[in-house]
């Protein structure tokens, strides 16, 4: 159970004026500005839920994760996880959590991968039998066996990330924080990682909080999402609600047989209507509550000779883009 109440985090940044003169000036009289990275965010996560954090770069997702894991201390507000205040009882608290920061590694750089796991076994005091069973499970799901005895510095990004995820799951944490766990990975590795996350959640009721840029992570893993933008919580709720709100929007894209032909069809004007044309490629976005899909298709086919046509759902990415740019309110 995770409870977060009104957390705020400010960072102090040095302002450097441009150029050499600016560098010298800031050497003698540094100026600071306060940046509010996280602004009054509250939420709750029940046990066993997978919660997805999404937001553009610099929105404050990682800062929130760092406060939840006890690395950063909020300026105000509080978080309580499994009954612990992360900053107060750090050593006891971190025993029960697993953390992956996609851009960092907790593996021992110079040592073979297995050594990291041995060190972790000692740190978390995992009994031998349990450790063996756990390693077996993780090796299988994350396919670690090809590189488990290689030094970590020789691993590829995908291998390292799978190894890092395994390291975070080794001690059967109650809560797992995954900050960008699939960043820069190919589709096969992403699948491995998602499978591991799902199995852990299903078998052990592990609460999982993950941040990502990859919306397919969210679509495949989370029912609930939190949207962060400029440090503020923009949306907290079911992913399906977003789909329902925007689900009536469809996009038809087609290729004209004659690229220079003019097209003209008569559609009632409404908010979601947008026609984009690039040479022979045309895409039309519209709301099906204003005009039905078959009617729209008929209109297009009547208006132009078409060599190819496709109907698309509006994707989550597009929805988020609209929310971020404040074209839509959830």
């Amino acid at each position, binding site marked *: 159970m995770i409870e977060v109440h009104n957390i705020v985090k400010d*960072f*102090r940044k040095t302002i450097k004026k441009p150029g050499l003169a600016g560098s010298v000036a800031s050497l003698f009289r540094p100026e600071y500005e306060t940046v509010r990275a996280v602004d009054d965010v509250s939420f709750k996560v029940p046990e066993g839920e997978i919660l997805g954090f999404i937001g553009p770069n610099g929105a404050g997702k*990682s800062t929130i994760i*760092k406060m939840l*894991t*006890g*690395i*950063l*201390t909020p300026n105000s507000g509080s978080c309580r996880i499994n009954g612990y205040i992360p*900053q107060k009882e*750090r*050593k*006891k608290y*971190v*025993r029960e*959590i697993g*953390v992956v*920061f996609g*851009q*960092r*590694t*907790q593996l*021992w750089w*110079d*040592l073979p991968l297995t*050594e990291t796991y*041995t*060190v972790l076994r*000692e*740190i*978390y*005091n995992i009994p031998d039998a349990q450790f063996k069973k756990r390693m077996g499970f993780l090796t299988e799901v994350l396919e670690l066996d090809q590189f488990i005895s290689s*030094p970590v510095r020789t691993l590829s990004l995908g291998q390292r990330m799978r190894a890092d995820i395994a390291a975070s799951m080794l001690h059967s944490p109650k809560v797992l924080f995954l900050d960008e766990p699939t960043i820069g990975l190919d589709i096969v590795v992403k699948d491995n990682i998602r499978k591991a996350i799902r199995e852990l959640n299903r078998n052990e009721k592990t609460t999982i909080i993950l941040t990502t840029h990859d919306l397919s992570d969210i679509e495949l893993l989370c029912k609930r999402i939190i949207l962060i933008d400029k440090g503020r919580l923009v949306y907290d709720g079911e992913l399906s609600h977003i789909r329902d709100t925007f689900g009536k929007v469809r996009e038809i894209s087609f290729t004209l047989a004659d690229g220079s032909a003019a097209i003209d069809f008569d559609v009632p004007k409404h908010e979601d209507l947008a026609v984009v044309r690039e040479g022979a490629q045309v895409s039309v976005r519209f709301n099906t509550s204003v005009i039905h899909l078959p009617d729209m298709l008929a209109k297009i086919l009547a208006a132009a000779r078409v060599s190819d046509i496709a109907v698309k759902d509006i994707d989550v990415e597009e929805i988020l883009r609209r929310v971020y740019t404040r074209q839509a309110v959830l």
Partner: protein
Amino acid sequence: MKIKAYLPFISGGIQSQLAYKWNFFGFFIGEIFFTFVMYYLWKAVFLHTDTGIINGFTILDMTVYIFVSNITQFLTGTDASYAIGEEIVDGSVSMRMIKPVSYDISLLFNEIGTKVVLLVLIMIPVFTGIEIFRYAQTGAIAFSASRLGVYLVSSILSYLVLFYFDLCFGFLAFVLKNLWGFNLLKGSIVRFLSGGMIPLVFFPAWALGILRFLPFSSMCYTPVMIYTGNWSAAQTLASMALQLFWAIAFWLLSRAIWNTTVKRLTVQGG
């Protein structure tokens, strides 16, 4: 504190050290070279004295002092400020904080692992060499196992003083964000004031009076003087008590700094 949780850090340290064995041999050869440079410098100085004695040191005393002080510095040297500075600058300090271990103790045990390798590979041949040299010069065996034992205990205290001093220093990275220049400055000051370059008795009397009680003498001078056998039992005990005092003082100081700065920690780079 459960000591068992920290033992793997020792073995990790040993293995990391062995992974870069050539790096470490290069460093060692550099130190040996530096030691010989110091030796020949002092030899030239002693040749130009009438009595062959400076501040109570003969050329033989000086030679033993130079070699023992360099090996001591090599054994007790610490990279704590460098390690913590780098971890703070690149943000990997967060990876230590998500583990149920103390920051300073995991770092300490990690480094002790690297020291184990040094002890085995370097210390035994170097001390054997020093004793053979002493024997060749005087014709008498000056080696005493009990003195070596006391020297080792004192060296461990030296190391702890240095480690926690360096850790306190390393926390400056929270403020300065980059420690490289300050680390060089600190290294020179420590080497000079700890007796690493010249025996502290070579300083003017008033300076010696102060330096004796500053933490620097506890970092190198004390174990070296114990090994060379120039000190009485009373002076040895008093100096080691002072080492213990400084080790505890810097340990407490590092705790206090850590507890206050960790609240203001900003992790750089995402």
